[in-house]
């Protein structure tokens, strides 16, 4: 038993849901109680999906437990198949159903599903978590669909440069992009474009946007690109073992990693390295000029970034990539590196060791917060959880990894992979540091007369202005309430009764000044001297008209 206040990952069936929701034509029947339907909102609210995730929950209740919950499972499967006509069916259970052992997958196997491929998902809810569930589901689904194509044992490995003999362009699969993953939608577009500019086609993108039939085309590619190891790692190794397909493993986040990725890709496919990917005498590749990051980082304006202490925490791939970019490409000093992805802990440990650090492997956000405080960073790169911790510690933060929130799914194109991704990272990491710096300057100069009237920075309402209160830290939000700005000459005639003040105090701080102003204006207009709670309510009714 383990005490958890906030959690980085959901249960494994949420991972399965992410695979189902990423794809078209897949439906998931989940044996689970009604409360588990909360998972739908992750997709419809955080990702703003326009359709409900393709899942049917059995929503069994206590009174069903005495009776036949197995019958309920079968009814739900039959109805889902009839209603949604999926091209592939996932059948599984959540934590509670695992305990009652109806074995929904076995039940489905005994039903006539009209020949739809069915995957029996057994995701141990009491030992595994969301990313593991996503990876396992993706692997099981592809394995089920590719079973008929399995080459007999002893078949020689597929040659990743066979495209040459076949007289066509090389092609690869992009694997692992999924819903609720960090910036997957834009990363896929960025990497597809990058590959195209190097003469490489994309055969299958999966799971994001794929249909079951597309997955059957996976072996037609010359190699797999494991874009998101958390989701595609196990599948890529299986494809390597069973189909002899090569895997490109470098995750192309950051300028250096993107160049390394391209080099690995060319080597794997037997493509000749273009000049831009061959390091010159100074060790630089011309290709790096496709991103602004190297120049922006070298420009004098960035001198102040030197040695900034940065604390990094996230899923393994994004944390490792962030550490490389921070230390090598931005000249930061990495003072902490960690992950909640236990499955990839080894890789994170290695990356940390390279920086002379010991990796923090933990899914206890309080332990992460403590490590963060201990490291005394000037910038935090983390998940939404670290964003909150950093805010409490008064340290600027940029989000680099899932778990995500609605603001991590921006409307604009903002990949983190490839050369454009590096530009995005430069902006989104350096910006919070600049905000911190500016606030510092504003604090320093706030006694100068130019500032007295309340300097408004381009940060808008978020930045504390000198006129209000200098008390707030670098969190960017001033919680202190500015003094009443009622007409100065007549302010003396107005007074707030204690009930009036008490009532006012109950109004949320961010609207309180406005309510105070309105109420005073209202009282003045009517010649009311003492503002009681009643007057406040009168004013409220007046202004809501």
């Amino acid at each position, binding site marked *: 038993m383990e005490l958890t206040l906030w959690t980085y990952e959901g249960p494994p069936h949420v991972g399965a849901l992410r695979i189902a929701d990423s794809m078209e034509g897949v439906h998931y029947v989940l044996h689970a109680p009604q409360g588990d339907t909360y998972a739908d909102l992750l997709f419809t609210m955080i990702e703003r999906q326009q359709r409900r995730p393709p899942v049917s929950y059995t929503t069994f209740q206590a009174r069903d437990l005495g009776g036949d919950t197995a019958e309920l499972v079968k009814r739900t499967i039959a109805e889902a198949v009839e209603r949604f006509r999926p091209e592939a069916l996932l059948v599984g259970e959540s934590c509670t159903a695992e305990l009652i052992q109806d074995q929904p997958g076995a039940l489905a196997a005994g039903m006539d599903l009209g020949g739809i491929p069915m995957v029996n998902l057994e995701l141990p809810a009491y030992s595994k*978590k969301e990313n593991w569930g996503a990876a396992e589901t993706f692997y099981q689904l592809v394995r089920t669909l590719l079973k008929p194509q399995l080459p007999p044992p002893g078949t020689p490995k597929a040659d990743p440069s066979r495209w040459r003999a076949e007289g066509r362009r090389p092609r690869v699969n992009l694997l692992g992009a999924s819903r609720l993953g960090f910036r997957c939608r834009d990363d896929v577009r960025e990497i597809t474009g990058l590959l195209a500019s190097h003469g490489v086609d994309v055969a299958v993108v999966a799971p994001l946007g794929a249909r079951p039939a597309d997955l059957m085309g996976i072996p037609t590619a010359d190699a797999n690109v494991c874009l998101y190891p958390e989701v595609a790692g196990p599948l890529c190794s299986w494809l390597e073992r069973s189909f002899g397909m090569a895997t490109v493993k470098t995750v192309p986040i950051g300028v250096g990693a993107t160049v390394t990725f391209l080099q690995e890709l060319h080597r794997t496919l037997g493509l000749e390295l273009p000049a831009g990917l061959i390091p010159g005498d100074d060790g630089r590749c011309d290709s790096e000029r496709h991103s602004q990051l190297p120049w922006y980082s070298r420009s004098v304006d960035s001198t102040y970034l030197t040695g900034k202490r940065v604390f990094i925490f996230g899923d393994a791939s994004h944390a490792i990539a962030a550490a490389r970019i921070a230390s090598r490409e931005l000249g930061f000093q990495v003072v902490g590196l960690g992950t909640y992805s236990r499955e990839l802990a080894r890789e994170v440990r290695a990356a940390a060791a390279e920086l002379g650090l010991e990796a923090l492997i933990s899914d206890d956000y309080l332990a992460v917060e403590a490590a963060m405080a201990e490291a005394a960073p000037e910038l935090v790169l983390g998940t939404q959880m670290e964003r909150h911790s950093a805010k409490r510690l008064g340290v600027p933060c940029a989000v680099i990894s899932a778990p995500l929130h609605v603001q991590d799914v921006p409307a604009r194109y903002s990949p983190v992979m490839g050369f454009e991704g590096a530009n995005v990272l430069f902006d989104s990491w350096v910006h919070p540091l600049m905000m911190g710096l500016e606030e510092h300057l504003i604090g320093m100069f706030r006694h100068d007369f130019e500032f007295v009237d309340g300097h408004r920075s381009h940060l808008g309402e978020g930045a504390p202005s000198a006129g209000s209160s200098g008390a707030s830290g670098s969190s960017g939000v001033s919680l202190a309430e500015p003094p009443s700005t009622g007409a100065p000459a007549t302010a003396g005639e107005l007074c707030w009764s204690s009930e009036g003040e008490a009532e006012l105090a109950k109004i949320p701080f961010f609207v309180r000044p406005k309510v105070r102003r309105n109420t005073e204006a209202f009282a003045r207009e009517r010649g009311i001297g003492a503002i009681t709670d009643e007057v406040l309510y009168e004013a409220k009714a007046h202004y809501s008209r």
Partner: protein
Amino acid sequence: MTTTLPPPIKESGQREVFCGLTSIVWLHRRMPDAFFLVVGSRTCAHLIQSAAGVMIFAEPRFGTAILGERDLAGLADANDELDRLVAQLLARRPEIRTLFLVGSCPSEVIKLDLAKAAERLGAQHRGRVTVLNYSGSGIETTFTQGEDGALQALVPLMGAPETGTGASTGGGSGTGRAAEQLLIAGTLADAVEDRLVNLFARLGLDNVATLPPRRSTQLPRVGPGTKLLLAQPYLSGTARALIDRGAELIRAPYPLGVQGSRAWMAAAAAAFGIDPALVSAVLDPLVERGQRAMAPHRETLAGKRLFLMPDSQLEIPLARFLSQDCGMELVEVGTPYLDRQLMAAELEQLPPGTQLSEGQHVEKQLERVMAQRPDLVVCGLGLANPLEAQGIATKWSIELVFSPIHGIDQAADLAELFARPLRRRGALTFT
């Protein structure tokens, strides 16, 4: 009395409703000296986190004791583990006075006896913290029913009233009997509660207590002479438990909207024999003002067609408010379950012919939504965007349990919550 309503549609199938654990999200704010410890799975932890939306609390006053494989192997283990975890938690959070052990589906299916655990832990930490238990599991409870469970757990701790003090309420007739008091049950926003208590005082009702209290240790008393007024419609079990203790249930609609809130207060006043003339003198100006404030929203809402999906159990009172005060047309009023006794005063005010539905088969219900094309659907977060994408305006029901919406003075704010999505649709254009 409700013969004008056709029989409700009764459905079973997929229910798109939160479980009772969700109510922790507002209960922990109401009682800052209490901690809610769910004994459950990672799913339970993830549900509360997702329903709460943002993780703004460094150390929230709720958490989940996540069962692991080792706990499932043997029950003795699970109890020891729970003891260890609770000791650890209490050491870290010395300010906690009441600890609620909250049962979940997994803890119930493995028959982990949390009542016994609460007793044991209560003895271990006696004098320092009171340990209670209730179920918020999805196999037993929906959404707001969690609060019903939590309040029921508090009832046995409520003392009996002191008798014959005479310092009872104004207008009361009894002398020498148990002191009369008005007991308001159901979580209200603190500011709203203060306002309502204040208004009752103007009616001459000074002896007003609330459940849950703001401090978990300051429980109101209950017994003969207690008149129970429900502020929330989902407290069936709590009401029963309080009635068993001698309280008398006041029959009233719920304090949503101008008319409902007035009737709610008037019913309480009548129960204490307060002169209706005084009630009118105090409340009618508020009613008039409330209606004035509500008028612009009524303009937006009148004649618009409303569909309520079953979710928070507030659906029937809301439907009554939106038709009675705001002139909306009711297409279908869903409710997770129908408690006819607690809804009696509401049901009789629904327009004749109102179609209720009880339980849910979400696919079929959504088919009805698409067929009827209402102007506004009240629904859970999972369904809102998909309906908006189909061109149907929605209002999330979860916002209603977090917002101060009760009482005459809040009626305009409540109406505005429903008018806003419609106004917004009208305000947007991309051509």
